[in-house]
């Protein structure tokens, strides 16, 4: 007993964390490569750590093995929330060759992820549209995102906007997607008059879904670059700007007009989907990860458009994020994992799987091969939206991703208060900005 007690007390003397293996700092970058690394021909088993409930990674790994028979996979899966909690420990302890990543700033700060710059150079990833990789670049130390070295890669990138129920839209006389914010407002008012629920949205529990329409409104009223700067934690960035205030006031107008369900503060994501699919709600702010699902459940009845700008002819912007995967700093088969990531973005078969199974636009060169998509489907319109966003350079990360805790601890409670009339638009932005500052500083 004395020994055990002594042992635990001895452990208690050092500062927490000092006993952990700390991967050596910038040495975790791939050593200078002269040619693109491959998986070779000798048998190799890649260790994967993926997210439960998303079939895309497994479909891709299966196809990869078919094309490279020497590569086999040892895959474990967890819920995204579990991955978020365990990421640092798993990467420090038993680094996977390929892993679904949560917000990466903390991981880079602790040198847990492989720097992919060398791979980007030899595979030519740096020739792709820059906005695709922007969100996965981090300045030294991991403090600022959006610039610096590449630490993750996407399997594809998602696109958000507004889904609408075509039958209900017909009922209120909407024949074409709105061109301006005023058009959208008019359609919402008509839906309300017709006794329909204008907007299907979730805002319950720890996930405030009103952040979707809010960020879209922000991009309608102002440029998207300052919003990205804020999300990327660029010094001096603020969410409390005049155009964002207009956007928040507009959201409050929608709330007061009764455009959201009365119980929106108790609706979770799954409930929103089942109600919208059941015909409750004309519009829904959501992402193209639902395209395949909606095409299957309500074939031909659902349309998609990008949030219209406040001024006619203005640029469009959308929340768009890569489905991020990374390589552990001390992964055994980093080169083979890198080849896989390159293959996902460039191989015709892999890109087809990316669209058909994942429902989102593949990564890779702007002129990369695209699989045929049935006309009139939601998938067709979300892919087209992706092309327009690339043209308008309007891709934004999600305001919920600015820090690890900003969504659950700041956006969500403040948006729920806004719904209940316990928060003002001014107060909301001020409160989020002050939470952001204290979280960026570290607590």
């Amino acid at each position, binding site marked *: 007993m004395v020994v055990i007690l002594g042992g635990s*007390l001895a452990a208690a003397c050092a500062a*927490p964390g000092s006993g952990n293996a700390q991967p050596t700092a910038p040495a975790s970058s791939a050593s200078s490569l002269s040619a693109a690394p491959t998986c070779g021909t000798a048998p190799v088993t890649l260790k994967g750590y993926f997210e439960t409930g998303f079939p895309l990674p497994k479909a891709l790994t299966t196809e990869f093995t078919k094309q490279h028979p020497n590569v086999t996979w040892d895959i474990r899966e967890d819920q995204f929330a579990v991955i978020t*909690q365990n990421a640092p420990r798993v990467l420090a302890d038993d680094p996977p060759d390929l892993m679904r990543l949560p917000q990466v700033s903390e991981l880079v700060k602790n040198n*847990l992820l492989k720097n992919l710059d060398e791979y980007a150079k030899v595979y030519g990833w740096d020739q792709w549209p820059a906005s695709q990789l922007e969100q996965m670049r981090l300045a030294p130390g991991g403090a600022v995102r959006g610039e610096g070295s590449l630490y993750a890669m996407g399997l594809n990138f998602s696109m958000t906007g507004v889904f609408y129920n075509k039958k209900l839209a017909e009922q209120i006389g909407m024949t074409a997607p709105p061109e301006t914010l005023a058009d959208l407002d008019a359609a919402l008012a008509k839906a309300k008059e017709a006794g329909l629920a204008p907007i299907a949205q979730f805002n*319950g529990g720890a996930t405030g879904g009103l952040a979707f329409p809010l960020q879209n409104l922000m991009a309608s009223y102002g440029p998207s670059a300052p919003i990205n700067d804020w999300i990327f934690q660029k010094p001096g960035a603020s969410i409390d700007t005049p155009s964002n205030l207009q956007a928040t006031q507009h959201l409050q107008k929608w709330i007061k007009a009764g455009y959201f369900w009365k119980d929106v503060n108790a609706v979770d994501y799954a409930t929103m989907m089942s109600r919208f699919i059941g015909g409750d709600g004309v519009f829904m702010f959501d992402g193209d990860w639902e395209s395949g699902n909606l095409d299957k459940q309500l074939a031909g009845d659902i349309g998609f458009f990008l949030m219209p700008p406040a001024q006619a002819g203005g640029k469009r912007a959308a929340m768009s994020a890569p489905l991020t995967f990374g390589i552990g700093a001390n992964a055994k088969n980093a080169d083979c994992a890198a080849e896989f990531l390159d293959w996902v973005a460039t191989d015709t078969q892999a890109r087809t799987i990316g669209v058909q199974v994942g429902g989102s636009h593949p990564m890779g060169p702007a002129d990369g091969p695209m699989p045929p998509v049935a006309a009139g489907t939601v998938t067709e319109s979300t892919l087209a939206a992706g092309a327009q966003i690339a043209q308008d350079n309007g891709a934004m990360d999600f305001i919920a991703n600015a820090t690890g805790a900003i969504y659950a601890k700041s956006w969500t409670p403040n948006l729920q208060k806004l719904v209940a009339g316990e928060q003002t638009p001014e107060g909301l932005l001020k409160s989020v900005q002050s939470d952001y500052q204290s979280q960026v500083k570290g607590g």
Partner: protein
Amino acid sequence: MKAAVKRRNESRWAGWLFVLPAAAFYVMFVIQPLVMTVQYSLYKWDGIGVATWTGVANYLRVFTDPDLFAAILNAVKLIVFFSAVPVVLGLAIAATIRRIAATRLALVARTVIFLPQVIPLVAAGITWSWLLSSTGLVNQLLTAIGLEKITRAWLGDFSTALPAVGVIGAWVLLGLCTLLLLAGMSKIDPALYEAARLDGAGAFREFFSITLPSLRQEIGVCVTVTVVAALASFDIVYISTQGGPGNASMVPGLEIYYLAFSERQVGLASALAVILTVLVIACALPIQWLTRDRES
């Protein structure tokens, strides 16, 4: 003489030897984590990198950050639902069941009331979030009796979220209290009741003069267990509201979990955990002292 002393010493050591396995586990899995939590609470640490010493800064933050302090207050409010309601209702139900003890109805009643205790808390939370949803059974019943005006999404409303969570807790803990009190009643000497009845006491008099005083210890156990359940609540809140809307039903247990695992503020989470532990002990000890059997 000397041999006797030696033997006594030997037997003392032998006793310790028997305790050793259990003590080792206790130290490993209770004492050590406790000591480490206290240690973590004095650092700023993200759980992986090297921590920096901050002294009592984390403790100051718990008392000055309105969100963290509000969580502690919510836990105190939950005591009404988790503790007062189940104990008072449990007493009434147990007394009623005791009076009909011989009938089959008593058996059915006992089973039905204890059932929530057998159901996993997660399942209870999910069931109740359906019952309390805007189209759930509770609102259907209210509409049916003409109270449509007060229907709402009970778990999504700022003013009702915490009480709604409390109702779920009361429902879960009522069974435990009833069963404990019923067990206590069954060991009261029936002669006491007989004597009271001969003296002309009614059911109420019997209850207050005999049942209640005899149940002092059982009530003490009920109150202790339920107060601790209220202060350390986690599962019901996590399943039904996740602390929402807008922190209206946030409790320390959930806050500690969020701080440690999604915000990676292990130091602050540990400080809140230490404060919660102290609060639980500060509530449980006086209850134990008050309800101790004075005669023994």
